[in-house]
């Protein structure tokens, strides 16, 4: 007696809990590995899993067992040349001696227990103790909005969705289909009738018979219903969730002559990290790139990072443009607006107060968060000091930081979006 059961549709992730338990237990190791990977990898390459190695001694489950040594008998298969009584030299080993050789073994070739974490897990560890600043809007918009969308035609539905054209077309087709045999017969009979009538001595009996049959056929043709239940078609509508949490991220960068490619690369890393972070928290993200020297311009990503300009620097031009774009395109309450500005700190002196004013009065009230990073190994410049005032007044929304090299980015990023800041904001 056997039963055959198809279990394939059962959950396949039965081991998921155990896997999570394992990851939790070795969280510290994994975090270190992730942290290393962030520093090692190019940031554009962030969205993939990572191989994690943990020394076996840490994951080992101890069991009581025999160690090396003592007097052992062992049986092997495949004897070719041995006879009983043969003596074989033991392979030379480092330790050599007996007894205390054990301790030496531990230091030797230690294997690692390696496994892979997925892209999502990788990012989770990366963002582990971060929380999105000022997530008020997001939490408010947790309930999903639905939009109805057409999804073809179905044979069942409510009368208000009835598609008259489709239904009638079906009815027409059905009438043609169901009547075609009868009509053919009618045609044949009529031809026969004509030929009979054309004969000199018409066979009246036959003509009579044909006419009765014709009448019968016509009657039955008429009985075909004009429209039937099976002809009815209804417009189908499905509900699709609309991404309710949308974010737009403004990348603002100085591209004047003083910004070298190295500085731009640093800035790029910062933007990418921010982008990844937002991507995890919003369903839909738009990017706007604004570059500026003395005047600002909205550009493509490629242009943003790789074209060179020369000339002076007026930062306010970029902020003005950002303000315009926000008010033009992203003013709805469904948008979460983030700004990230990177600069080497240079600005035309008289412009800095204006920047602070635009940012403080116009932009900050309507956006979620603005981050300013100054990439320079030198002293702070005028813009930094101008921004400090704004930052004081808008602690939860505005963060400033100085970055000197690539290794600074991640810590600074974490600092900008650290949980504490989020708590303050709430």
């Amino acid at each position, binding site marked *: 007696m056997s039963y055959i059961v198809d279990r394939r549709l059962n959950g396949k992730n039965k081991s998921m809990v155990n896997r999570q338990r394992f990851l939790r237990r070795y969280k510290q190791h994994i975090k270190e590995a992730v942290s290393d990977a962030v520093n090692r990898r190019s940031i554009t390459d962030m969205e993939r899993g990572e191989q994690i190695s943990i020394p076996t001694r840490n994951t080992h489950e*101890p069991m009581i067992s025999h160690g090396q040594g003592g007097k052992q008998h062992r049986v092997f298969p495949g004897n070719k040349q041995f006879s009983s009584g043969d003596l074989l030299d033991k392979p030379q080993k480092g330790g050599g001696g007996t007894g205390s050789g054990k301790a030496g073994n531990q230091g030797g070739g230690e294997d690692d227990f390696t496994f892979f974490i997925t892209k999502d897990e990788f990012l989770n560890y990366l963002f582990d103790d971060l929380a999105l600043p000022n997530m008020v809007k997001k939490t408010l918009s947790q309930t999903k909005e639905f939009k109805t969308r057409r999804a073809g035609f179905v044979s069942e539905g409510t009368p208000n969705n009835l598609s008259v054209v489709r239904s009638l077309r079906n009815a027409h087709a059905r009438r043609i289909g169901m009547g075609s045999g009868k009509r053919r017969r009618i045609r044949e009979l009529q031809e026969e009738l004509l030929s009979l009538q054309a004969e000199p001595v018409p066979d009246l009996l036959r003509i009579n018979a044909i006419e009765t049959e014709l009448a019968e056929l016509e009657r039955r043709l008429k009985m075909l219903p004009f429209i039937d239940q099976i002809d009815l078609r209804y417009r189908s509508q499905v509900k699709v969730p609309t991404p309710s949490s949308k974010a737009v991220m403004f990348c603002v960068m100085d591209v004047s002559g003083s910004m070298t490619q190295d500085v731009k690369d640093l800035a790029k890393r910062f933007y990418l990290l921010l982008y990844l972070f937002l991507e995890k928290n919003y369903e839909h993200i738009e990017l706007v790139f604004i570059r500026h020297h003395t005047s600002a311009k909205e550009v493509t990503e490629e242009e943003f990072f790789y074209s060179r300009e020369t000339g002076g620097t007026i930062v306010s031009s970029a902020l003005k443009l950002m303000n315009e774009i926000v008010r033009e395109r992203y003013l709805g309450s469904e948008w979460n607006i983030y700004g990230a500005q990177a600069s080497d700190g240079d600005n035309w002196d008289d412009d800095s107060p204006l920047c602070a004013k635009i940012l403080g009065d116009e932009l900050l009230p309507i956006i979620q968060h603005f981050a300013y990073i100054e990439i320079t190994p030198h002293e702070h410049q005028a813009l930094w000091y101008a921004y400090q005032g704004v930052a004081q007044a808008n602690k939860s929304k505005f963060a400033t930081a100085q970055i000197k090299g690539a290794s600074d980015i991640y810590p600074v990023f974490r600092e900008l979006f650290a949980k504490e800041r989020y708590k303050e904001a709430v």
Partner: protein
Amino acid sequence: MSEEKRTDTRQYLSTDSDWTFELLETYDREIGRVAKIYGLDTYPNQIEIISAEQMMDAYSSVGMPIGYNHWSYGKQFLATQKSYQRGQMGLAYEIVINSDPCIAYLMEENTMPMQALVIAHACYGHNSFFKGNYLFQTWTDASSIIDYLLFAKNYVRKCEERYGTEEVERMLDACHALQNYGVDRYRRPRPISAAEEKLRQKEREDILQRQVNDLWRTLPTRKNETTTNRRRKFPEEPQENILYFLEKNAPLLEPWQRELVRIVRKIAQYFYPQRQTQVMNEGWATFWHYTLLNHLYDEGKLTDGFMMEILSSHTNVVFQPDYDKPYYSGINPYALGFNMFRDIKRICENPTDEDREWFPDIAGKDWLETLHFAMHNFKDESFVQQFLSPKLMRDFHLFSIYDDDEKPQYKVEAIHNDEGYRTVRSMLSRQYDLSVREPNIQIWSVDLEGDRSLTLRHTMQDGTPLSSDAYEVMKHLHFLWGFDIHLETFKDGKLVSRQSCPSVSVTE
């Protein structure tokens, strides 16, 4: 003539390599029919079709269909997943569980011939072994294991909710380290039943705690008792079942912790027969998939191509590399077991003079009866000792090496010749003896009136020391017991070393 007759009656069950549920049923019915002819007595089968991912899940829960959650299973899963995804390892074609009904997992990726092979191997081979072998009959209760595992899983989950995942994990870690010492080797365990467990749980918790409290009574005893109880040795006899001892006597464990010890112990007990019958179990199943499918082929129900695929897979399974080959990894239990059962059949049917001399009891007897007798009444150790024939030792070119750590050379002590047969055979048999494979450690004494320390005695076998893990295990033991642990190693009746946990001190 017979060839002609066969061609006439030839009616293939299928000609395609794809399987369908209808075909699975057909093959299962046919294989079941043939199995009856050979007298295979089985539990009902529950054949479950699963995907590769699910197979990995099943793998990492060490063959338990339902397991409590623990990080070590996650580790197992990650390791399996990695080697599978890198193609270092194929997955097993099947996993079979000693339960009633007998659950067998078949992978959906298998072809029809492979499914048939697996059905014959697992659902009739292993299944009849589980039902017939005396160890399984004595130590496991197939009808209640699934219920018990479910009970265990739920109990562990409840403990996690009440006492925290970390606490429970710590307990389980400690118990797992000792799980090979959670088995009664000589006493038949009471069959486990989930319903009973639940019912008696509360009752048991109370009684247990009372017993323990009694043992650790701190109130001054009355005068007349003092004299009789003074210097009483506890435990009176050395205890080999360490987990059982802890469950009953550890002074500081909470009732739920005792229950966890019990769960690990019970599950270890369930797997105990499997660890002792690997060669027999695999050999038996392999022998029967080979025999049953050949029988069907002879009836003209399988196509040549079908049989070729089965034989090719079968040949891989029973391949035994020589000791000096790079892919040698010990004696292949499938190869040894399969060939031994075949050899028994040969001895019964066509005994040589040598066989008559070595196996007077079975030479010329009914092979089927003899085979069933062997399956019912032996474990690996005794099976090898009883049935390994000189012919098979010659076929395998077996030889035995003596390795004395005080000598610079290995000695070939016996090979496959007249003088060597008996030595080779008993050495191989020893290799399968669990009591030789695992260090002999027993609970020796508890210092009841002093510092409550627990002393274990390790009796060295052939001068083999313990591996360095032992101290780690002592730490776990210390956690469970709550007071100092001493481990004394005796060699030829003399104390040679003494380790203590938490503090380490080695004497002599």
